């Protein structure tokens, strides 16, 4: 099963963010979404878990139309989805272990010692051993980010939505996280959607890359196709050269 967005429109007041977006994420692939700041990448991801609803169009995840689900069905679906928030969104009243355990506590028949074992395992995956008892406000920005990642993968979801998982991390940690994303796909068969501004990392982890521009997918293709693309706007983005984009428009 996959994720499918069909002709999705979404506006905030006068700000028409998604304008007829069509996007398909295939089963078991990792898809990266790139695009300028404010293009609506986070908005797309929020549609996939039903945090936002489209003004029109359909969002179909795992064969279910997200905007038609009631609270119970939506919660059912959300157990299969892990969401890494752009700003981590850790619960600041809980320590790191409790944060990571939150999703696990909603799983049927998981006992406390199993939960805590899984928490340690996930924290180890993101290089955060020993931070169990600390509070989010006591961690560095990068650590908070990784804790958010640990919380999302804890329940072994079928889908993982990563909103800029490596922004603000040091280069070595970026590689650790990149490898983790690849591992989630290869070992657990996770279908992944990654929003990233890090082109090198997108090349390493993605099966396909799409570029969002003016509310639609401007270009999409495998890593090789994207690397070779002649689209001036895409090139300007990949190479960080605004003058190319000006020529395009």
């Amino acid at each position, binding site marked *: 099963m996959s994720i499918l967005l069909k002709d999705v429109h979404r506006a905030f007041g006068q700000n028409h963010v998604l304008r007829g977006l069509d996007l398909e994420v295939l089963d078991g692939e990792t898809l990266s979404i790139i695009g300028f700041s404010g293009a609506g990448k986070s908005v797309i991801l*929020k549609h996939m*878990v*039903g*945090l936002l609803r489209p003004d029109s169009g359909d969002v179909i995840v795992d064969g279910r139309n997200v905007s038609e689900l009631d*609270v119970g069905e939506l*919660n*059912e679906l*959300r*157990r299969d*989805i*892990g*969401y890494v*928030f752009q*700003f981590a*969104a*850790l*619960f*600041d009243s809980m320590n790191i272990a409790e944060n990571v355990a*939150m*999703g696990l506590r*909603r799983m049927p028949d998981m006992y406390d010692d199993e939960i805590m074992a899984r928490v340690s395992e996930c924290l180890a995956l993101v290089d955060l051993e020993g931070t169990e008892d600390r509070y989010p406000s006591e961690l560095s920005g990068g650590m908070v980010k990784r804790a958010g990642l640990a*919380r999302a993968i804890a329940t072994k979801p079928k889908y993982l939505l990563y909103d800029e998982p490596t922004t603000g991390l040091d280069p070595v940690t970026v590689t650790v996280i990149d490898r983790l994303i690849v591992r989630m796909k290869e070992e657990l068969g996770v279908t992944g959607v990654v929003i990233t501004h890090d082109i090198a990392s997108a090349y390493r982890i993605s099966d396909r890359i799409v570029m969002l521009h003016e509310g639609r997918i401007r270009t999409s293709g495998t890593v090789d196709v994207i690397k070779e693309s002649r689209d001036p706007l895409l090139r300007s983005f990949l190479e960080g050269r605004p003058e190319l984009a000006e020529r395009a428009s």
Partner: protein
Amino acid sequence: MNGFVLTPVEYVGRWSINRVRSLGKAGYLTTGALRALRNVEIWGPRLLTQMVSVGVASVPIAVFIAVFTGIVLALQASYTLTGAVPMYLVGSMVGKSMITELGPVLTGLALAGRVGASTAAEVGTMRVTEQIDALETLAYDPLAYLVVPRVLAGVLMFPVVIVLASAVGVLTGWAASLTLLDMSSAEFVRGLRLFFVPFDVQFAVIKSLSFGLIVTSVGCFYGFHAKGGAGGVGVAATRAVVVSSVLILVLDAFWAVVLL
């Protein structure tokens, strides 16, 4: 629209649309919270913590207010009752006004500040930092997790705090009568019992329940719909305090009309 000035018609129109929209949001939140009552496994474990933070933590301020109110009531009563009126009526006046009116309303207003602001600020911070979204993605109904335990704690604990405060107020009124007014205990108690009916306590408890419901729901409402950053949270907290204080006074009058 010509220029920057809205015509009065437009202004009234927008104002009405916004009011209706708020009512809609409030209705949505209420039905959602009622539905969320089913998810005991989510709100149950959080109820006790909330009862402590709404109730136990409010006791000092409530007692502080009650002590001074009790003293002032006794002095005020003796100042009013001069000449032929018997002094034991001081006991009646302290008891009656403390239990039925001043205990509930003064404590309610103090808790509207304390509980209302902290509820709106906590929930509002969670909203603007996407923690409420995070709850949803982890398959928690935020209404069950945040709203239900807070509102239930308000409904359960406001009466406890208010009854305690009223009792403290009556006791300090008594002490003030003995020490400052040259009354005897027998006199004070005689006055206290003269007009006391058990219904006074029921009346106070009903009021307190409704105050607890209002303060916590209003706090949750403004927190839930907070927008923007720290500024938005501040606005939510301020509105929660102002609106719940006003509603407490309105409700107080409402119950007086309906029940007395």
